[in-house]
């Protein structure tokens, strides 16, 4: 076999954003032993944010260079901009609209987390230079995972991301909470990775391929009786593995502790970037690999149950929380439940439970609504966490709901922006959260026996209003809890402003985002 160097290098060309970010990460790592004072650390943080911004520009430059060229890259991956095969025969990484939009979400989440945390890292005395290198590596892993269409590349991307995030969660070495969070997250994350791998090995055993396109072809050709049980088990293991990674009930138990114990900027990164990448993985595996009707029928109802449980349990327990980070953790579990509705709608259509003409619409809407929700949720959640960071001052943890008391009097602008984030999380019109929910509801309402999920989601939204508005009541109707000035810095203000602009822009003028997102559906074969 001859080695085709030219095609290999051509494939690498499409990884330029990731390669650039890797360079940034190594540069930050190499510089970190020489950084000893606060000024140096601030420069490292800004350099990291700038590096990620350049990667975002590179990503869109790459995309703009081929926009409109949604031609068939390979017979196996129609609609993709480019399919990287690395002399492998089948696409290992896919550059499509889906990948580009979600990678942009991850990069934005990374930039926001970096900016919002500069002062926090100093207050917590955990600002060692390596922090930003590890964060950049987590972003690289997430981007790699989003493009992956092979079990091998999926696992490499997932582990690159997860290992980095385990480190980040436990970054506050002297804090018991942070240690506990890191250990719980690491143990359950490793366990979930193991389950996922086990499912992959069973799927490989049944079909003889690790590639999602290969899996798709093998399942379309029909499986022998003996392989059917293996596939059912594989689907079960992978649903559980993905359930852990996206934090769906009943696989959510690590989430509140990990979110509360991690430094808040890491919590923000986990709730936005890591969740987005995990959803991308789930969508690729199930909508691409297991899209045959017989298999879709199996995983659709599993995800239907996960969706119903996640939104209900998440919302009900969130009501009882007095800690904002825990409340937002349970709220993020609830949002996973909402987002899963899109996957369930697409699955019901793939399983053949929705007749044409709604069928293709449901598949398309299901996929794109999850993407849209990830975009909307990333801005909103990052904004909410950034405001929580504002309350962390020397001597005050600032993560109780009581700490929000009287914010409207002390900082009316910030309180107004926080109100926008809260309303967006609840899904009130004119915010990003509403647009996202609207599409998700529309997708399950196409039929297929999952309309009850929309009803349940609507009921849950009513429950969620209570605990989101509880924070608003504290901000607007109570006297200030303390006199210590808020931890305002230019970078944190920039992060909050960016998140607020994103949340409001998607809510008030959704057309560009909707067009971008609806372009992603047809690209996910």
């Amino acid at each position: 076999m001859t080695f085709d160097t030219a095609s290999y290098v051509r494939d690498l060309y499409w990884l330029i954003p990731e390669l650039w970010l890797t360079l940034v990460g190594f540069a930050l790592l190499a510089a970190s032993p020489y950084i000893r004072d606060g000024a140096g650390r601030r420069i490292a943080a800004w350099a990291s944010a700038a590096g990620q911004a350049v990667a975002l520009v590179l990503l869109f430059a790459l995309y703009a260079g081929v926009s409109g060229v949604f031609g068939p890259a390979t017979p196996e991956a129609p609609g993709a901009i480019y399919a990287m095969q690395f002399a492998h025969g089948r696409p290992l990484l896919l550059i499509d609209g889906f990948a580009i939009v979600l990678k942009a979400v991850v990069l934005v989440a990374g930039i926001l987390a970096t900016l919002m945390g500069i002062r926090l890292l100093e207050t917590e005395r955990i600002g060692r230079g390596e922090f930003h290198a590890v964060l950049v590596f987590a972003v690289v892993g997430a981007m790699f995972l989003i493009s992956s269409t092979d079990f091998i590349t999926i696992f490499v991307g997932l582990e690159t991301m997860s290992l980095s995030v385990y480190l980040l969660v436990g970054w506050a070495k002297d804090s018991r909470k942070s240690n506990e969070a890191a250990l719980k997250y690491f143990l359950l994350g490793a366990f979930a990775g193991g389950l996922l791998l086990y499912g992959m090995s069973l799927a490989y055993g049944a079909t003889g391929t690790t590639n999602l396109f290969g899996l798709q072809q093998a399942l379309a050709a029909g499986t022998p009786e003996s392989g059917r049980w293996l596939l059912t088990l594989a689907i079960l293991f992978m649903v559980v593995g993905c359930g852990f990674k996206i934090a769906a009930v009943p696989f959510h138990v690590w989430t509140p502790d990990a979110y509360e114990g991690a430094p808040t900027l890491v919590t923000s990164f986990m709730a936005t970037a890591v969740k987005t990448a995990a959803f991308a993985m789930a969508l690729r595996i199930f909508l691409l690999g297991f899209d045959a009707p017989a298999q879709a029928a199996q995983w659709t109802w599993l995800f239907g149950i996960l969706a119903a449980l996640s939104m209900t349990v998440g919302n009900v327990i969130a009501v009882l929380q007095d800690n904002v980070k825990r409340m937002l953790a349970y709220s993020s579990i609830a949002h996973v439940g909402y987002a899963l509705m899109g996957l369930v709608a697409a699955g019901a259509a793939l399983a053949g439970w929705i007749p044409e003409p709604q069928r293709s619409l449901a598949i398309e809407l299901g996929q794109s609504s999850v993407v849209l929700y990830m975009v909307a949720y990333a801005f909103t959640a990052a904004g909410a966490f950034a405001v929580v960071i504002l309350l962390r001052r020397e001597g005050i943890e600032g993560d109780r709901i009581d700490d929000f008391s009287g914010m409207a009097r002390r900082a009316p602008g910030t309180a107004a922006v926080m109100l926008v984030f809260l309303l967006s999380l609840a899904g009130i019109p004119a915010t990003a959260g509403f647009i996202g929910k609207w599409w998700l509801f529309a997708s399950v309402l196409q039929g297929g026996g999952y309309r009850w999920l929309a009803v349940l989601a609507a009921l849950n939204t009513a429950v969620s209003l209570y605990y989101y508005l509880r924070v608003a009541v504290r901000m607007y109707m109570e006297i200030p809890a303390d006199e210590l000035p808020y931890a305002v810095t230019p970078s944190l203000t920039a992060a909050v402003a960016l998140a607020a602009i994103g949340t409001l822009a998607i809510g008030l003028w959704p057309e560009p985002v909707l067009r971008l997102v609806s372009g992603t559906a047809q690209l996910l074969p």
Partner: protein
Amino acid sequence: MEQYLPILGMVLIGIGLPVVAIVFARLLAPHRPGGMKGDPYECGIESTTSVRERLSVRYYLIAVLFVVFDVETIFLFPWAVQYQVLGLFGLVEMVIFIAILLLAYFYVIKKGALKWA
């Protein structure tokens, strides 16, 4: 499914053997516990200190460093075998790989992880 039957047999034997061994040992052996018998030991030698000793973190560092540079050689071997096929491209890739490891090495030195005193 028939081809999996031997595996099932192996699983059954695997579970059965220890169960049989433990049950028979319980039934047949005389049970007379005593002070000395409960002591931890290694190769019949009496223990002199507590087993719960603290290990230097350096052992962990050495282990990690060993793994890093050991894995490097694992990647070097297949590259050496396929050198003719991969040509210049393979050489460049390998140089990048080694450069990354070298960077890690200098990082480790700079961090003082190799200072033993």
